[in-house]
C-alpha cells in the first residue's frame, strides 16, 4: 500500500482563537487525488494555508512524511501577485524553477527547455515576452499552472483553481491535474463544482469546520452528508466557551 504523505492529527486551525478547522483527523496517501469540499466558511482554504505553514495550528499538528514544507507547490485562491509589476510571462513562470536555481544559479539549457515546455503545455507559447499585466484572467491562471508545473512538486495544493475561468481553460487545466495524478504526484484541490469532483476526483474530504465525511467520492457526496454540511453556521460565536475536547 502507498504510504501517507500528509496527515492531519487532531488539527485545529483558526483565527483569533475561533476554530475554522476543528479537531480534524485525516491522512492523505502519496499519489492520492483529493478534493476538499464544503460550504463557504467551512475551513477549506484555512486547511491549505495551515499545510503550507502560513498559519500556525491552534491545536494538533500537520505531519509531512518524506517532504519539507518548501517542497509543496501551492496555488492560493487570491495570490498576492502585483499585476502591474513590470515582468514578463517567461520570468514569472521561470520562478517555478526556484528549487533548482535558488538565488544565483543560471537556468541553463535544461531550464530554458523546461520553461518552454511548461508554457507549451498550458497553451501559452508565444506569450514569453508579454508583460503579465496584459494577460486575461484565464491566461494568468494558465501561467500560474505553468509555474506549478516547473516546481516539480510531489504534493500540490490548489485552492479553487477553476473559479471564473472559461470551460476550455478548465478542460486543459483538468488535463494537467490528471497528468500529475498519473505521475503519482499527490494533488489536493479545494473545489465547489460537485460534478467536477464526481468525475475527476476519486477521493473527497467533506469539511464544515469539522470533518463531515471523507473517503471515496461517491460515498462522501451523499445527500445526507451534503445536507449536514450545509447546516454549518458561518458566524463565529463570540460568547463561545473554551473547547474542552
Amino acid at each position: 500500500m502507498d504510504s501517507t504523505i500528509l496527515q492531519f492529527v487532531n488539527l485545529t486551525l483558526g483565527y483569533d482563537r475561533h476554530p475554522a478547522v476543528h479537531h480534524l483527523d485525516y491522512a492523505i496517501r502519496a499519489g492520492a487525488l483529493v478534493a476538499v469540499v464544503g460550504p463557504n466558511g467551512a475551513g477549506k482554504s484555512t486547511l491549505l494555508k495551515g499545510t503550507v505553514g502560513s498559519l500556525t495550528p491552534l491545536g494538533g499538528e500537520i505531519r509531512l512524511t518524506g517532504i519539507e514544507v518548501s517542497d509543496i507547490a501551492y496555488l492560493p485562491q487570491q495570490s498576492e501577485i502585483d499585476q502591474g509589476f513590470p515582468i514578463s510571462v517567461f520570468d514569472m513562470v521561470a520562478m517555478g524553477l526556484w528549487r533548482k536555481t535558488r538565488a544565483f544559479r543560471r537556468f541553463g539549457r535544461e531550464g530554458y527547455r523546461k520553461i518552454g515546455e511548461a508554457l507549451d503545455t498550458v497553451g501559452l507559447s508565444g506569450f514569453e515576452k508579454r508583460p503579465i499585466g496584459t494577460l486575461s484572467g484565464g491566461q494568468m491562471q494558465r501561467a500560474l499552472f505553468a509555474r506549478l508545473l516547473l516546481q516539480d512538486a510531489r504534493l500540490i495544493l490548489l485552492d479553487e483553481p477553476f473559479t471564473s475561468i472559461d470551460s476550455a481553460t478548465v478542460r486543459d487545466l483538468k488535463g494537467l491535474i490528471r497528468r500529475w495524478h498519473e505521475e503519482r504526484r499527490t494533488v489536493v484541490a479545494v473545489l465547489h463544482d460537485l460534478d467536477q469532483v464526481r468525475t475527476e476526483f476519486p477521493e473527497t474530504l467533506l469539511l464544515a469546520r469539522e470533518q463531515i465525511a471523507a473517503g471515496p467520492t461517491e460515498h462522501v457526496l451523499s445527500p445526507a452528508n451534503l445536507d449536514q454540511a450545509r447546516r454549518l453556521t458561518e458566524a463565529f460565536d463570540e460568547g463561545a466557551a473554551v473547547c474542552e475536547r
Partner: protein
Amino acid sequence: MYDAIIAPFVEFSFMRRALVGCLALSLGATPIGVFLTLRRMSLTGDAMAHAILPGAALGYLVAGLSLGAMTLGGVIAGVTVALLSGLVARTTVAREDSSLAAFYLISLAVGVVIVSTRGSNVDLLHILFGTVLALNDAAIFLVAGIATVTLFGLAFIYRPLVMECFDPGFLRSVSSLSPVAHYSFLVLAVLNLVGGFHALGTLMAVGIMILPAAAARFWTRDVTPLLAIGMTAAFLGGFVGLLLSYHASLPSGPAIILTAGVFYLFSLTFGPDGVIMTRLRSHHHLEA
C-alpha cells in the same frame, strides 16, 4: 560650449567632487528608488529620511560636525525605525504604512528637539539641505563606499527581491529568504539616505532616489532597463543640475532635484507609456 559645460568642472575642484558625489548617488540610491517605486513604497523613502534625523542630530551633539558620528547615528535611527515598523506590521493588526508613519513622526520630533537644544537654525538647515558643493574626501569615500555596498548587496539579493516585490506569497512558499530580502533592502535604503543627506540633505536625498526611478517607468516595462534608465537619468540630472547651480547661482541640491523633476515631467508627457503616446496609440488599434 566648452566654457559652459566642461570648464566649471576643470577649473573648480569642488565642482568635480560634487560630480563624483552625484555619480555615486545615482549608482547607489537610484536602484534603491526603483525597487521602492516597484514596491509602492515611494513615500517610504521620504518617511525614512525624516526618521534619520535624530540619529544624525545626536551624532552631531556628541561629536560636532563629524561625518562618522552623524552617519552612524543616522543609520542606527533609520534601521531602528524600519525594523520596528516592520515588526509591528507583522505581529499586530496595524499595516506597515501606519506603523512606519507613527515611528518616523516620533523620530522626527525627537530629532528636532535634539537639534533645538544645542544647535542654531543654521545647523538644522545644514542637515536638511546638505552640502554637495562642500564634499570633502571623507564624504566622497563614504558616498562611494555606500554605492559599492549597495550594488553588491542588490546583486546578491536581486532574484529574491524581485520575487518579494512581485509575488511575496510565492517566495514565502518556496523559500525562507523573504524576510532576508525585505530587511536587507530596507537597510540598504537607510544607508543610501544617510549617504544622500551628506551630499544633498535629508529632504533632497529622497529626490535623487525616487524621481529618476519614477520617470524611468514611462520608458520601459521590464526591471533591468528600468534600473539602467533610472541610473543614467539620475547622473545626468546631477550633471545638468550642478551646471545650473553654477551658472545661475542656485543652491546645488534643489537644482539637481529640479533637473530630475523636469526629466520626470518630460517622461510623463513624452515617454512611450506617458500621457501623449498612450493617447496616440489608442486611436490605432491592431488587428489581433
